[in-house]
Every structure is written in structure tokens, then in C-alpha cells.
């Protein structure tokens, strides 16, 4: 989610007419009064060429050629992530991804680091709920070296016991830091409320307890099951020829046999229910607010219309929340809403952060905007503005080879029709106010929103009551347990909870 440094959206500056005498043009007296200038002649933006091929073993390879800078970027996407985590072992996919470049069957973690750093390359691994990735960037003269490294890391990670311990320690310490980050806590809790115990609701980073439970065998099994060529997409982007790209892919991945994929069984998300959870941190000076609901998966036919509806609520180029909360009232640095339409389900969540004293006011305004979106038909003008942005911004989204590759990889990953890439602007322009109203009424249920507030509960609870929110659960931040159905853990007996070095999270292991 892009954060804006400065304001967007119109504001009601009518408010200031009273002081307009003091609205001095700062310096130039004879400046002309005029309308914005006309545009120059437009040049049509077309999606740059790319090529998609599938190897005999099922590996999909996408090549985007670009010769301005002498670099090549290789991205391997694996269709596996935290949804594949085993029961009680949240964090397997994240830990496995972190370990991919920490040693293979033929090279140690140190040798891999020495090699990529010395050639002036970069290497990154990671995972989300539905995918994992390895990304390698090298200068063009190291293309083959980079491809060899990529294949080694993807196909033959060692998952050595000492590296597992090291990464667990890093992950556990990071969780300890994350707990002090209101954005992390609010995000993790809203996911739990929206998705329940569906894997999208569980923390992909794991918890100290689930991390401790993960074994080398779990990691090896996860890798063997999911890291197979017919479950992967490779993007090769940059200063190589198409022939070089496909030949290299064939050379390092062609001999890797396909394997049968086991279908995934996952629990459903609960139906939307109004639930307000306050995570209490008495030291907080600001309250993190998240308001959300179950939405739609990426391949839903309603995706485009609903995406526009959520953008009108709180997205780039529109954003009622930003106007109401920031421009008109100065309650926050930023307010936004985001549609996360994922592979198997989706959500939409509005977020803001406001000082403790204005928590009730901000929450009321946010929930009211959900109601307005459902109740009132958007004007053609407001929709047109949002469409103009979304359609007009197309040339900005194809500037760099990585931008281009991301769009192609997205379409392939979500198994959407590949023609969609070229017709984006036209499809955006076809959405009508009636479409927006239909999807808003179907998916936005203001009386069944999940709400999370992270902040100083004692200071803002009376405000909530004043603006009509009377039922909520308060969970002290030290008792939060994301794996528990109640979100609470039993209070520890006897342990000091404020020991600075051996903190409570580690002491439990």
C-alpha cells in the first residue's frame, strides 16, 4: 500500500471563507487568472512485447526483454505459501523461504552470500499467503551464473539444522519487535477477525510457539510437496535475448521432473459478524484503526467494479476517507481502503491512525463511509474521476521492465485471461454507477464489520460509547495470542513480564 506524503482529494475550503481576507496570494500581484492549459498531442501507450512459454515439465517461463540498462532480473514464483502451513505450525512457509538461500546441498550460506555479493548481484527470498519467491538480480555478463544460483536455491536447499536454529532465533526476535509495532498488530488482528481460522487469518510469520514446533522434516516435506516445476512461474526480465532466456531456463530447470500436486483442504472463513476488538497498549499516543470485511477472490467477475468501489472509498485517485478524515478534519496523516483480492478469498480493509483523543470520532466517520457507499449511488462525476485515474495511469504502470513483468506474472499467477492486459483501460471505462451500487450492496455490510483498535483503551473507550459503539472486547497487548480462538492466551504465572532482555515471548520457549 502506497503511503502518500501529502494530501489528496478535494477539501471544503468554503470553511475558511471567514478568514479569506487573510488569504493573501503570497507574493505575486499581477499573476493572471486562468484555467489549466490544454494537453499536447497524446501518444498511444501499448503494452510492450513479452513472451510466455511452458517447458515440458510444466514450468511457465515469461521473458520481458529490455535493453536500456545492462542488468537481468530473475523471479521464480512458487504457488505455495502460508496456506500450506500445517496445523499448529504457522510459519513453515515463511521459515522455508528464509532458509532457501541459507545453504544448499552443495554450498554453504556463506558461500552463496560471498558469490552473489562479489559479482555485484542481489538475492532475495520471501513468501506470502499463496506464493513464495526467489529473486536474483545480476549484471548481464553474470546471467548464467545467476540462473545457476537460482536453480540451486530453488531445487536443493539444505535446511541445515544450525541454519534452522539461526532463522528461528531471528524470526522470534523479530516477532518481539513486531509486537511493539501497532501497524503489525492491527494488521494481524484484522486478518484473524475477517478470515477466522482460514489460513489467510493466521499469522504467516508464525508465533514463538508455532515456530518452536517446526522441525527440519516439516520444512523438507513442505519443499518437496510444493517446489515442483509444474507449480512455478519464472520471469526473466532485462538485457538478454529471448533465445538466451528460454535456453537458460531449459538448461537449469528442464531436467527437473514434474510431480503430482496434492489438492489443499482448507477451512472456510466465517460469515461476516460485527466484532470490535481493542488491543490495549496504555503507552500508545496514537490509535491504529482497521475496519474490514470478507470480500472477493481475484478471479471474481465483480473484481473490477468492486475495486473501483473500494478506490472511491479509500484508494488512489479518489478516496473519500482521506478527504473526510485528513483534509476536512486533520484527524490523521493518512486514511485509505484497500481491496485485497487473493487467490482463494479476499477482504477489504480501511485503515487510519489517529491521536488517542480523536479515536471515537475517526472510527465513527470511517464506519459511516462504509454505510454511505452501500446506501448512496455514486455520482457519475465521482466515478468518472476514479475511472480517469485508473485508466489514465496505465502508461505509468508499464515504465520499467519490472513493472511490465509484474503485470504479466500477476495475470499468469491468478490464471486470468492473458488478453486482459491489453484491455484494461477499456474495461475500466465500461463500469457504471449502477455496477458500483450493485457490488456495494452485495459485499459491503456495515452492520457486520470487523473492527480493530490498537491503542490506549482506557483513554478512548468512553469516546466509543459516545459515538454508538458499546460492545467490544479489550485484550491487553501482552495477552494477545493470534492462534487462539479467543485471541487471548492464559496469563503467565510467576514470570516477570517486563524483563527487558529475556522477554516474555522467549521465556515461554
Amino acid at each position, binding site marked *: 500500500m502506497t503511503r502518500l*506524503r*501529502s*494530501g*489528496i*482529494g*478535494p477539501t471544503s*475550503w468554503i470553511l475558511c471563507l471567514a*478568514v479569506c481576507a*487573510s*488569504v493573501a*496570494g*503570497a*507574493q*505575486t500581484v499581477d499573476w493572471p487568472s486562468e484555467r*489549466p*492549459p*490544454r*494537453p*499536447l498531442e497524446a501518444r498511444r*501507450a501499448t503494452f510492450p512485447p513479452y513472451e510466455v512459454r511452458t517447458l515440458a515439465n510444466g514450468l511457465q517461463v515469461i521473458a520481458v526483454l529490455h535493453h536500456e*540498462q545492462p542488468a537481468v532480473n530473475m523471479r521464480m514464483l512458487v504457488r505455495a505459501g502460508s496456506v500450506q502451513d500445517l496445523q499448529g505450525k504457522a510459519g513453515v512457509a515463511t521459515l522455508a523461504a528464509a532458509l532457501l538461500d541459507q545453504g544448499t546441498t552443495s554450498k554453504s550460506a*556463506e558461500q552463496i552470500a560471498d558469490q552473489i555479493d*562479489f*559479482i*555485484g*548481484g542481489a538475492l532475495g527470498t520471501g513468501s506470502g499467503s499463496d506464493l513464495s519467491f526467489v529473486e536474483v*538480480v545480476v*549484471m*548481464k555478463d553474470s546471467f548464467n551464473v545467476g540462473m545457476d544460483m537460482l536453480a540451486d536455491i530453488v531445487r536443493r536447499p539444505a535446511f541445515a539444522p544450525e541454519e534452522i536454529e*539461526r532463522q528461528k532465533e531471528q524470526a522470534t*526476535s523479530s516477532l*518481539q*519487535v513486531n509486537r*511493539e509495532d*501497532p501497524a503489525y498488530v492491527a494488521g494481524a488482528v484484522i486478518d484473524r477477525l475477517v478470515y477466522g481460522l482460514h489460513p489467510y487469518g493466521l499469522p504467516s510469520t508464525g508465533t514463538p510457539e508455532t515456530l518452536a514446533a517446526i522441525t527440519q522434516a516439516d520444512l523438507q516435506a513442505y519443499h518437496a510437496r510444493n517446489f515442483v516445476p509444474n507449480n512455478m512461474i519464472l520471469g526473466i526480465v532485462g538485457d538478454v535475448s529471448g533465445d538466451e532466456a528460454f535456453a537458460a531456463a531449459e538448461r537449469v530447470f528442464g531436467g527437473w521432473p514434474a510431480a503430482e500436486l496434492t489438492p489443499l483442504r482448507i477451512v472456510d472463513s466465517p460469515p461476516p459478524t460485527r466484532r470490535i476488538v481493542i488491543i490495549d497498549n496504555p*503507552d500508545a499516543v*496514537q490509535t491504529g484503526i482497521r475496519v474490514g470485511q470478507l470480500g472477493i477472490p481475484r478471479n471474481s467477475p465483480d473484481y473490477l467494479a468492486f475495486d473501483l468501489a473500494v478506490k472511491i472509498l479509500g484508494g488512489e485517485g479518489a478516496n473519500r476517507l482521506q*478527504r473526510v478524515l*485528513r*483534509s476536512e478534519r*486533520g484527524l*490523521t*496523516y493518512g486514511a485509505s481502503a484497500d481491496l485485497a483480492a487473493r487467490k482463494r478469498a479476499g477482504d477489504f480493509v480501511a485503515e487510519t*491512525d489517529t491521536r488517542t483523543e480523536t479515536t471515537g470520532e475517526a472510527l465513527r466517520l470511517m464506519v459511516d463511509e462504509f454505510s454511505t457507499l452501500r446506501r448512496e449511488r455514486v455520482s457519475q462525476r465521482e466515478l468518472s474521476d476514479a475511472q*480517469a*485515474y485508473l*485508466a*489514465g*495511469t496505465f*502508461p*505509468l504502470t*508499464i*515504465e520499467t*521492465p*519490472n513493472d511490465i513483468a509484474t503485470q504479466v506474472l500477476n495475470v499468469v499467477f491468478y490464471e486470468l485471461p492473458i488478453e486482459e492486459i491489453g484491455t484494461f483501460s477499456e474495461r475500466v471505462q465500461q463500469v457504471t454507477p449502477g455496477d458500483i451500487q450493485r457490488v456495494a450492496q452485495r459485499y459491503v455490510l456495515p452492520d457486520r464489520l470487523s473492527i480493530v483498535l490498537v491503542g490506549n483503551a482506557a483513554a478512548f473507550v468512553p469516546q466509543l460509547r459516545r459515538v454508538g459503539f458499546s460492545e467490544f472486547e479489550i485484550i491487553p497487548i501482552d495477552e494477545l495470542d493470534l492462534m487462539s480462538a479467543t485471541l487471548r492466551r492464559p496469563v503467565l504465572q510467576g514470570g516477570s513480564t*517486563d524483563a*527487558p532482555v*529475556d*522477554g516474555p515471548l*522467549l521465556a515461554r520457549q
Partner: protein
Amino acid sequence: MSDTTSPPVSLRVAVCAVMSVLALVMLAPVQAAVPPPKLQYQITTLPNGLRVILSEDHSTPIVHVSVWYHVGSKNEREGRTGFAHLFEHMMFKGSKNVEPEGHISLVAGVGGRSNAYTTEDVTVFWQTLPSQHLPLALWLEADRMATLRVDEAAFQREREVVKEERRLRIESQPYGRLSEIIYDTAFVTHPYKHPTIGSMADLEAASIADVRDFHRTYYVPENTTVTIVGDFDSAEALQLVTQYLGRVPKATRPVPREIPREPQMMEERRAVVEEAWPLPAVVVAFHIPYDGHPDSYPLHITSKILSDGQSARLIRELVYTRRLCLSAFGAGNLIEDPNLFYAVCIVQPGQSPEAAEAALIDEFEKLKDEGVTLQEVERAQNQFARDYILSRGSNEDKAMHLAHAAVIHSDVTTADGEFDIFMSTTAVDVQRVARSYFNESNRVVLHVLPRGARP
């Protein structure tokens, strides 16, 4: 300041004879295996003093326009910290022909993006939009440069927004206040002592008179560099710039440039403070020269040797091997005025801040006593070449390099000219600058402990 294209004359300082001979033999003519392309541009100054840099790139029908005002938080006066950034927000509050918030919505309405940011040295406004809308971008920027609306109610609201920004980015984030604490400890008189976001008290004290005065003083053509990169014809673009920005009147007084200098430290400075953070942070810092100083290039190479990549010294030794730090880095903050080189260790549970301090200081001592290997220098140069290439991908990236060279170095040719300097930096240079700056009397040591942990 424009002497940055001459190579650092460092090989004379041959402290370790064997090392330096090796360095000369093996490293003097190093070239990156894949030379990066040069930027193509032209630079012009309009009669009102405004500088214009134009760089055509027709690969995509878009254009990026940035406006750099050479004013940042180091130009703030006592008691008004945070004002340059607060003022940046006010630039979105309308002008003679543009409604409040109209700048961003007009740009969004044609499919463009716009925003702004403030640093210690500059305030930058930018927009990227489909290229046919270049006139709109220039017209909008000219309107607010010449006729900013200054409105009390909008000012009051925006001040609350900035206070929320401070709470969000600085006060609510673990380690969000770390750099604030480092700079407050390390600096005495130079305004780098203060964070760009400012203090709550100073934000509260700012007035609408300050807004008018700041605009009149710093938002004038001779303090402004406009950079346009993308799909346009240079002659046509220059005509448009002249038409819209050329009519902004010249300033009536010179832009103030005097900034208090930081006195040299005479002895080590130490501090222990407490914050509500989960793990201790230990910082070891040294004062260093400005960006573009001959010593800044070896210092940048030193940053890479210490913390770029998993094989870099601090990461390999302190994070990977000894498991002393959850994360660690050490880097020079090379900006317009002399600043700091600092290393940070976020201390792992079960490890002590004292051990972390000793380990960080030891790494600096090793740079002085043993120097660095030729292989490390070559690695750092390859990483530099990578950064150089990867950071010139988009129009915005290119505009950033061009404007930075013109404004901070007062020499646009450094946008390309520094590549060869980095490629000819040697292990001897790295050791020499380590010995110049990483000394006890120039050192600041800071322990930030979780609340209640102070002995």
C-alpha cells in the same frame, strides 16, 4: 563544491607499503565489466534564475517533473524545527488558480501521480503523468511557486496532520526515534541536530506569518531546479517552462545561506537513554565530511564493506556468526553538510549492550589497523556499479540523480562523473579515511535500553 570530479589524491598516503603497492597494481585501472550508459541531458538557467534540466526518454509516453527547492530542515531557525516539512504540506493548500488539494486531484484526473518530500537539505515536489500533460504539471508548479494561498484554518488543520505524521512514523514505531536520539547526541550547533519532522512544541509554535516569510524567502526561482525526464521534445518543453515558470518574478533579496557550523569534537561523547523498545540498540558514530568531499567516496565504499549484503563484515560477523545482533549496519550518511558515519546493533535477547559496543568498535579498529582486502574493495565496487545501474531505471530515478548533482554538488556532471571515482577508489583510500575519522575523540557511543533496564 564542484571539485568532485577530480580523483581523490589518496595514493600518496601509503601507510602500509606492501598493501599500497598491491592496490596500485591490481586496482588502479579497474573498470566495471559492464559499463552503464551515460545520462543524456541539457541544462539551462532562465532569466529569473530558475534552473531547468531536460532529459528525453521516449520509451514510454510519460513524463516526470520534479521541482527541487534548495531548502530543508537545516535551514530552519531555532524554535521552528519541522517547519520546512510543514511548509511542504502547505504547498498543497491551493494557489491563485488552484483550489486547496486541487494540485493532486488535477494530476490524478489525467492519470498522473504527484507528491512531495522534505529532507535535511531540500524540499522536492514531483509528478509523473502521461506525457501530453506536461503543460499541466508546469502550470501547477508555477502557480504555487508564485501565488501560494496562505489560509489560517487550513494551516491549523495541516499542523494537526503533521503531528499525526510524527506520532505515526516516529513515536509509535519501534526504533522510530533512534535517529533523532543519535543526532541530538552527536550534534551541538549545526541544525542536523534536529529531526526533519521537528518537535511537537515547535510545530505548535509555528505561525501563519512564518508560512508567508518562508515562501517569500526560499520558494523563489533562483533557489529552484526543475528537472523533466521522459517523452517530450526538449525545444517544446523549454518553451513551456519559460511560458509558465519563466514568469515567476525574481526574488527581491538573496536566499540566506549561512548555517551554523558544527565544532570539532575534542573527546568522546557517550549517552545512555531509555525508550519503550523491546530490544536494546547500541550505536557507534563518527563525524565525517560532506557528500562530494574526496573522502566521501572511500567512506561510501566502507559502508558497503561493512553492511551491504550477507557477506558484509557487520552482517557476517555480528549477525550471522556471533548472533550478537538481530540486525546491524554501518554506513555514512553523506549529505550536503558534514554528517555522521554510524553503526547500529539491535541486540539479541541474552546478549549484552556492552558486548555489542565492543564488537562495533572493534570493527572500526580493524578498518584502521588491518585495512580491507582487495577482494572486499572489488566486491564493493561491483555492488556500487549494480546500485548505479539499478537506480537509473525509471524517469523519476534519473531526475533524482540529475537534480541531486545540480543542487547538492552544484555540478550536474557529477550525475555521471562519480562512477569513475568509485571505480578507482583503493583499499589504501579506505584505510586512510578510516584512520582520519574513526577515532576515539571523534566518537559518539549511545546505548538505548528498554525502559527500566538502566543500571
